[in-house]
């Protein structure tokens, strides 16, 4: 017997799901932009398939990043994904024992225990092939059920899984999760009842079957149980494309495309849609998002992406994000939440057309300088930083020119963060012209916001872009300036754009280490909190920003350091209004501890530089 009518809910559901996936995936791939299609074709041929497949195995099945987040949470996800995968693969192998090795219809291995009542071996005879499979299949089912138990516990004790908050689910999600959670207990019941009726099954199903048979009419119950199992599978498959579980197939596609080098562009595109559909709404991002502290939970990435997926993000969800990148850092799927948010803003802000008339007043000046110093707009709002840099640059003996001494063209980053990339391109074009024609080889800026955009969006061949923390470290290491250690304690705050944004964590610390004793803080480097002053957010008021600022200050100042050091003028300004502790930029710390270099050292340094 290889067919029964009860397989129809499963089989129909599966065919429906495959059809929907085929249509969706084809539509996504077909609407990739030109460079995306090129990358896709190239990626398929140049061997990227292999590392991508490895990542699919490690992430989609084993959930390695989830494990990093929390072991219990990782195990829960792995037991469902990897367990189900094993159930399918091993079930298929097992079914071939009984079907003579040829390929079976998809429902046959799934409902194998209904179709085959193997009584040739005893339940615990592991050394025979059927016995081994019976054991391993029961074991895998138990493995999945352990994950299910954890999932139920997580509902009430999410803290055990490292999560303060979990995602609130939509209606489709509720249908899907209910059917998903029923699938494996129903399989257990169906197999156990069948085992009870026919004395089959492995260590688990046989034991349970014998137990149920003692007081239940299992011979009448097993058939409805198989119906229920099939129906649960069918319902899950039908609801999957509209629920968060769409992330299961989509993430696989995402991993391949990402390995091929495809990224979310400046406007919403089909790749950003793939990223949006890949969000499992696991909720890991919700806890790390400081929007919660400000009472704006609906703007956290999980909910924002959900709104995007169902097509109705409100303006506030779009605008309300510091773009600090903490969510991207912890996301198990590594969804580029920042790029998606910025692309979504394009739609909101595209009607804004700024004027560029003022650009004409800036002319490139011919300088003989090697170093071009750019304070940036924020640098001009913190004159102490600017003054410190000029003092250090003068002391270093380097030939420098102060590019924006007399006003400047904005770097373009604030416009980019608002999604206005066409307007930003105008500024980038102008600044590129000014920098290229200055002839300088090194460009140093005090502002991490500027640094990121000069580093990533500008094409300046032959010009090295440095943040002042990197440059100052270089000056100290090369002996062009000397600093002393005054023995005071300091904590260092990683600015979002410099740390997570540009991966510069070490240079400021190495530099500071020569001047102060650095106290560690509970959340630093990749986990550093946002200061609350970000130009990335377009909707928060100051009261809400202050909540975020104070939260960060609490963590930073826990060790009661003498000074709080940062490397971003905006962080400095923001923190300075929230604490009595002295807040300094790293350049000011250097400037205060600058030692007069002896003449011989100075000329030696000049020679090295020459």
């Amino acid at each position, binding site marked *: 017997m290889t067919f029964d009518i009860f397989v129809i809910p499963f089989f129909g559901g599966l065919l429906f799901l495959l059809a929907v996936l085929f249509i969706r995936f084809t539509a996504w791939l077909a609407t990739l932009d030109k460079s995306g299609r090129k990358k896709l074709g190239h990626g398929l041929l140049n061997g990227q398939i292999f590392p991508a497949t490895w990542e699919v195995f490690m992430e989609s099945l084993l959930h390695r990043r989830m494990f990093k987040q929390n072991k219990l949470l990782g195990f829960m996800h792995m037991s469902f994904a990897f367990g189900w995968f094993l159930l399918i693969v091993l079930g298929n192998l097992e079914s071939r024992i009984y079907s003579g090795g040829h390929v079976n219809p998809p429902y046959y291995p799934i409902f194998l225990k209904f179709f085959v009542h193997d009584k040739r071996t005893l339940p615990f005879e592991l050394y025979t092939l059927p016995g081994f499979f019976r054991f391993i299949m029961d074991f895998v089912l138990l493995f999945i059920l352990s994950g299910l138990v954890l999932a139920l516990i997580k509902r009430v004790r999410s803290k055990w899984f490292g999560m303060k908050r979990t995602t609130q689910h939509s209606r489709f999600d509720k249908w899907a999760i209910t059917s998903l959670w029923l699938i494996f207990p129903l399989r257990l019941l169906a197999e156990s009842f069948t085992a009870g009726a026919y004395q089959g099954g492995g260590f688990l199903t046989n034991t349970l079957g014998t137990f149920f048979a003692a007081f239940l009419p299992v011979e009448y119950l097993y058939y409805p149980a198989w119906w229920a199992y099939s129906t649960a599978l069918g319902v899950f498959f039908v609801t999957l494309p509209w629920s968060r579980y769409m992330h299961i197939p989509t993430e696989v596609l995402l991993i391949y495309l990402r390995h091929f080098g495809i990224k979310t562009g400046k406007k919403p595109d089909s790749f950003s849609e793939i990223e949006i559909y890949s969000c499992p709404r696991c909720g890991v991002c919700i806890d790390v998002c400081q929007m919660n502290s400000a009472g704006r939970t609906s703007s956290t990435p999980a909910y924002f992406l959900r709104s995007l997926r169902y097509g109705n993000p409100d303006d506030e969800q779009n605008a309300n994000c510091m773009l600090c990148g903490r969510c991207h850092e912890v996301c198990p799927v590594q969804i580029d939440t920042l790029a998606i948010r910025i692309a979504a803003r394009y739609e909101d802000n595209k009607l804004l057309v700024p004027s560029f008339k003022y650009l004409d007043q800036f002319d490139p000046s011919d300088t003989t300088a090697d170093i071009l110093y750019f304070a940036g707009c924020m640098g001009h*709002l913190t004159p*102490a930083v600017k*003054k410190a840099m000029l003092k250090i640059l003068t002391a270093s003996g380097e030939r420098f020119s102060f590019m924006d*001494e007399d006003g400047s063209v904005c770097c373009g980053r604030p416009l980019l963060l608002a999604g206005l990339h066409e307007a930003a391109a105008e500024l980038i074009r102008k600044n590129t012209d000014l920098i290229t024609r200055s002839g300088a080889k090194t460009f140093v800026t005090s502002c991490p916001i500027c640094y990121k955009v000069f580093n990533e969006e500008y094409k300046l061949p032959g010009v090295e872009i440095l943040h002042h923390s990197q440059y100052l470290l270089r000056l100290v290491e090369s002996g062009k300036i000397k600093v002393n250690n005054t023995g005071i304690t300091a904590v260092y705050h990683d600015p979002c754009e410099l740390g997570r944004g540009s991966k510069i964590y070490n240079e400021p610390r190495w530099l500071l280490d020569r001047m102060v004793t650095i106290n560690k803080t509970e959340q630093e480097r990749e986990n550093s909190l946002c200061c609350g002053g970000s130009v990335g957010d377009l909707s928060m008021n*100051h009261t809400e920003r202050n909540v975020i600022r104070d939260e960060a200050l609490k963590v930073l100042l826990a060790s009661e350091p003498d000074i709080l050091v940062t490397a971003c003028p905006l962080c400095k300004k923001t923190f*300075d*209004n929230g604490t009595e502790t002295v807040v300094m930029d790293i350049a000011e710390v250097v400037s205060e501890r600058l030692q007069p270099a002896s003449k011989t050292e100075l000329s030696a340094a000049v020679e090295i530089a020459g």
Partner: protein
Amino acid sequence: MNRKIAVIGGGAAGLEASSALTSLGFRVVLVEKEDETGGHIKNWHALFPNRRPGVEVLDALRSKLGSDVELFSGKTVTEIKPVNDRFELSSADGWKTEADAVLLTTGFSLFNARKKEEYGYGIYDNVITSAELESAFSTGKIAMKSGEQPKRIGFVHCVGSRDEKVGNIYCSKVCCVTAVKQAIEIKQYLPDCEVFCFYMDMRMFGRHYEELYKEAQEKYYIQFIRGRLSESTEDHTGKIILKVEDTLLGKPLKIGVDMLVLMVGMEPAEITKNLGTQLGLVSDSDRFLVSTDQHISANISEIPGLFFAGTCTGPKNIADTLADARSAALAIAGYFDNNHNKS
């Protein structure tokens, strides 16, 4: 025995309330954290709107204190404890006293201009605060760091006031008219000096203030530019270059001045905040203390027997502060008439 009232703070409000309370028959313990009474007035050379010397008002207030006022100076009250209808007070150095009622006249502090880093206070030599200019008037020497006389001075209104970014959304009330007064005084000391005032809007709320503003424009040719300063830089000659938008012309301006005066606003004094926290008093988002009703019982706190007067409940000019102090004295008298007839 006469009832004893502790007045915390010997500035304008504390002095006026103390003499009012004694004339109502109370004994007063006046506690001042500094060595001398007078609060901010003692550092203020001349008062708006008529530019009379601050010391004149201060002398008048001090001379009204009779022998029923026991003055303790150099004492910072750190704790006020309500105990059985009375209060036990103690200071940081261990001094103690008791009182039947307490009047907080703890006042304000000036906004720390360093918090507005883009204006360059503490960074550039010739950026000073309005309080520092007032001291300069006392010495009669208006000069730049180099010793030269400034040829052009800018006044920036609303420094630390009406500025969400520094956490102060409120208006400090007195800075506009102070700027006008100081601008005129500059012109009197240095008739050739050009004076610019950068303002958001001119809040000339008191009697004769508007006349003073008119006089500043018509008689002294002081230039008032509507626009908030965005940032200042120092050029190689030490000139302060201001970036500001003239919002009436709708044009960005760049202007160099020899000296920049920041009109720093009022914030609740540290002691106001500390005692408020210690007593569990309500304070608003502006951090000033809150009375039970801002119209009808502006001097009465949530704690029976504890009263407020002066700028601990928000920015006030001197005349309003003195009126508020007398009103507090009456509120205290009323408190004993209504609630404590038995003793």
